[in-house]
């Protein structure tokens, strides 16, 4: 695990030294800024009529925009993690240094998760802006950000696994987008299947949409924590196995 720090630092460096990171962050902040502006505008003109939702809830829950940016940004963030190193051969230098597969996988994951958090960090400003005009329930804000972190962590973990099973960055990108979109659509099945059926239970258990709505209204359900916990740990585990498996290929 001592190899964690150098690889973590290098991954962050590699990400931020290329234009890719800055393009992604810019796109992300543009979309979120627009989203925020529309919401505030909406709430300002609607006045007292909508009282069951706060701008904060609307920003994180019940909005397709949140997922759109995630579908758009997560795959390009994770696609290069392993695919690039395998294509260019640098993986050979990396794995012949005294490092462990777990150390490499965790370091790369931590780096991409850090980037994700850095991407969201500026949106805290929106809360500061909202506070100028009214009260903010900080518990709800915290739970909403927890939700964003958990969903992102799960998606990033899946993305890293996709990057580990192919040498092509493009294929990793497509696979990641497909998998997280499929997971999302399966979750939406909650609203189209009949209540009481097994299918409905399955769908509602994996329903990212419903989870985010809960988180956005300040509900932290332990079942969600377990779900996202496994969504992070399982792909990580398989990634470590995949990295080990290259040796025997």
């Amino acid at each position, binding site marked *: 695990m001592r190899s964690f720090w*150098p690889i973590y630092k290098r991954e962050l460096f*590699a990400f931020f030294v290329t234009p890719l990171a800055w393009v992604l962050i810019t796109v992300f902040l543009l979309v979120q800024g627009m989203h925020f502006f529309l919401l505030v505008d909406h709430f300002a003109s609607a006045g007292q009529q909508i009282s069951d939702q706060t701008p904060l809830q609307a920003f994180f829950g019940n909005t397709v925009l949140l997922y759109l940016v995630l579908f758009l940004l997560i795959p390009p963030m994770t696609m290069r993690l392993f695919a690039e190193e395998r294509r260019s*051969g*640098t993986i050979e*230098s990396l794995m*012949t240094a005294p490092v462990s597969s777990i150390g490499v996988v965790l370091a790369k994951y931590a780096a991409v998760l850090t980037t994700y958090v850095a991407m969201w960090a500026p949106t805290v400003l929106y809360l500061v802006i909202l506070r100028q005009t009214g009260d903010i329930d900080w518990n709800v804000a915290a739970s909403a950000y927890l939700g964003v972190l958990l969903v992102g962590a799960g998606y990033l973990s899946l993305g890293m696994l996709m990057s580990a099973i192919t040498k092509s960055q493009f294929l990793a990108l497509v696979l990641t987008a497909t998998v997280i979109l499929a997971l999302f659509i399966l979750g939406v099945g909650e609203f189209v299947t009949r209540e009481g059926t097994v299918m409905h239970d399955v769908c509602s258990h994996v329903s990212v949409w419903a989870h985010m709505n809960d988180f956005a209204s300040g509900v932290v359900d332990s079942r969600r924590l377990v779900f996202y916990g496994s969504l992070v740990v399982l792909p990580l585990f398989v990634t470590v196995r995949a990295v080990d498996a290259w040796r*025997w290929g």
Partner: protein
Amino acid sequence: MISVQHLVKRYGSKVAVDDLSFEVDKGEVVGFLGPNGAGKSTTLRVIAGFLGLTSGTVKVAGHDITKESFEARQKLGYMPEAVPHYPEMRVVEYLRFRAELKRVPGGERKRAVWDAMGKANVRDVANVVIGHLSKGYRQRVGLADALVGSPPLLVLDEPTAGLDPNQIRDVREVIRELGKEHTVLLSTHILSEVEASCSRVVVIAGGKLVAEGTMDEIARKRRSAGLHVVVRGDLDAAVAALRGVEGIVKALPEPATTADEGVHAVRCSWSKKLDEGAAARATEEAVGALVGRGLFVREASPVKSTLEELFGELTGARADDAAREDEEEEAAS
């Protein structure tokens, strides 16, 4: 420093390395020679801990590479064949990263990187982004990478591949220097490379060991390829006499080296089947036949095959296998 015992490496059902055993002792510079696709890179990758082995044991500095992989990798500096780097990093940044990965303690890291850059001759490009470097420099950065932390053992996969003659000379110079402090195992498919920098050589072909020893020992394996005779008398009669000897497949006149009247030189080639003893007997017969025809023999000397021919002989029989395995290696890596 390296002990390879009955190493077998399969890719699926294809065998890339087949029951290979050899040793590299401390302080040696050993050349690992073989045609392209003989299994050189595969073997080195196994030694470096990048590929797992199918069966057999490999020990690096006394550490079994499957059981004590960390210890083994820490004792070894490895330079992969294509010398891959992260193109976006500066040379010194990259080497610092490598030093940290190789667990050079924080206080010594700067020094270790500086020393490695000195030995590999890349100090002048320390602050250049690796993606902008020429092939020769990138190769030397790879060497510096292998040297960071001064591991006792260096494993270099084709360190001069793709370089121009001047660069090749530079790299060989560096390797000779390194040989004084490190144990070196370097692979190559170029014979002169081994002659230039190695104290011992291990030759493989088709994944199998075909020869091992010092350059002199290998050179002694050269068999005589033919016979060179100088005779005084009728040239046509001499050629006819030589062609009549069993074991000689070709007899061609050569320009004589003296100006003496009626003196001719003939070069004969042995048939491929001839072993050393039979060649000696055929020599006796040839001289006898010449004398029997009334010609005067001034000189009869064996023609040794060149090292290149020997290399071809040692590895040639397996060239077809090797070509097939080359493709597999590409597919597998």
